[in-house]
């Protein structure tokens, strides 16, 4: 308990940064991942190929490597200078989008074909069918795996701590500088994550109940 109370000035802001990192990256990957999924089901073969290539490459690359690229290699490239926090958000978004894309796509596959056919019979075009008929149902049906992916994103955000972002994953190194017990500090960090994950699981269960599609 002492380790937590003596270092509240660390735990508070660092966990807040974790939540901030999670929130921004979550919104980013939900948007980008859905766009990727739309590319992957589009009638234009080139778009499908682009989406598939992206997902295949990113899903087979370790997130740590993505971080290493954006934190160590990217700054050498004279494009736009970014802070460590931004680099972490970009890394997490780039990585998580590929998984969100696959979740959304599996959701699109659960929507009965008749829905799209009915849409076409009414004269809707592909964008309208996807945006107004299929995607709303697909997104509802994939709430559990979607939140599982977001939980993974939350846990993955600790890697940012290893790349100069002051968030929960970095608490340990500060504690060791202050000379407090690292084991105890790490157990508190673990407890923090158990609480955050439980909150997300709770959201998952209530959304699942409210949004389940009657078919």
């Amino acid at each position, binding site marked *: 308990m002492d380790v937590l109370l003596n270092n509240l000035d660390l735990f508070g802001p660092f966990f807040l940064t974790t939540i901030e990192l999670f929130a921004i990256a979550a919104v980013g990957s939900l948007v980008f991942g859905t766009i990727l999924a739309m590319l992957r*089901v589009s*009638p*234009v073969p*080139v*778009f*499908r190929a*682009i989406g598939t290539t992206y997902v*295949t490459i990113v*899903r*087979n*690359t*370790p*997130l*740590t*490597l993505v971080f*290493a*690229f954006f934190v*160590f*290699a990217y700054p*050498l*490239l*004279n494009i736009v200078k970014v802070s460590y926090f931004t680099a972490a958000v970009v890394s997490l978004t780039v990585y*998580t989008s590929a*998984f969100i894309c*696959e*979740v959304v796509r*599996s959701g*699109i*596959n659960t929507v009965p074909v008749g829905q*799209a056919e009915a849409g*076409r019979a009414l004269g809707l075009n*592909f964008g309208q*069918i*996807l945006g107004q008929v299929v995607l709303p149902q697909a997104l509802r049906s994939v709430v*559990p*795996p*979607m939140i*599982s992916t*977001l939980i*993974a994103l939350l*846990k*993955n*955000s600790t*890697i940012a*701590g*290893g790349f100069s972002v002051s968030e929960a*994953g970095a608490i*340990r190194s500060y504690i*060791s500088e202050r000379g407090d017990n*690292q*084991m105890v500090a*790490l*157990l508190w960090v*673990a407890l923090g*994550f*158990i609480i955050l*994950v*439980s909150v*997300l*699981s709770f959201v998952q269960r209530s959304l699942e109940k409210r949004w389940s599609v009657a078919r």
Partner: protein
Amino acid sequence: MNNVLFDVPGPKSRIRHRLYAVIGIVVVLALIAFVVYSFYDSGQFTAQKWEWLQYAQVQSDLASAVVATLKAFALGAVFALIFGAVFAAGRLSDHGWIRGISTAIVEFFRAIPLLILMFLFYYGLPTLGFDTSPLFAVVLGLTLYNGSVLAEVFRAGVNSLPKGQAEAAYALGMRKTQVMFTVLLPQAIRAMLPTIISQLVVLLKDTALGFLVTYPELLYYARYIGSQGAFARPIVPSTIVAAAIYIVMCLLLTALATYLERRNRRSKKHIEPTDRKAEQIVLGNAAGGQAFGGGLGGSS
């Protein structure tokens, strides 16, 4: 992919799609060209930055870094599979207390970020007087995290089997342990093989976390070579090489999963699971890269 969200395009649509395709290709090519130009502009493609790959010493060091990655992967995979099988059996036990303990352990290790687990074993245990090494921390972390995910995969696999399998085994006079280990688990593992292997891909990628607890694996070596002044600090080239090696290793594992899945479908021994819902949970999550409660490789 035979998705039927759209009709077979007619002549007008085909022209329109061709136009979109051209625009798409131009945009993507422009992006790639921009990135390549930035690499070129900042001198990442100069011969000097790639020279390091020619040194025999560097090559053998790179090879041993890959071996270190594979070693962590192999140890982690074997232990995680054992851990998963044991705790899946525990969660399916008839004894409430065994179920309770197994559930608690599995849920606990799935809720904690893998990196924090590795930190616990590498930095935490020494404060309690235990000697640890980076390899120990990496393998133990990978085992506990991925083992917990695999336990859920095995459990869903067993639940998806037709009930008659267990009933027939009991009718033959088998004991519970026998039923589980000689009848149910082998079939569950066979049915779940593609999911299990995609979890092993996650495990392989997670070995890169070893970098953050000073385990000298592939990414660690890429970073080391990238900081060498003697080779003009080729961090961009070394990251590209490391990424290529990781992607090839993971794709090989994925190809194995696809091959096994196809062979499985042909095999007569394959039993079509009756419980579609249990299957869906696992497959739905496999699409997300992991099992329920949030895997995705917990980390990388």
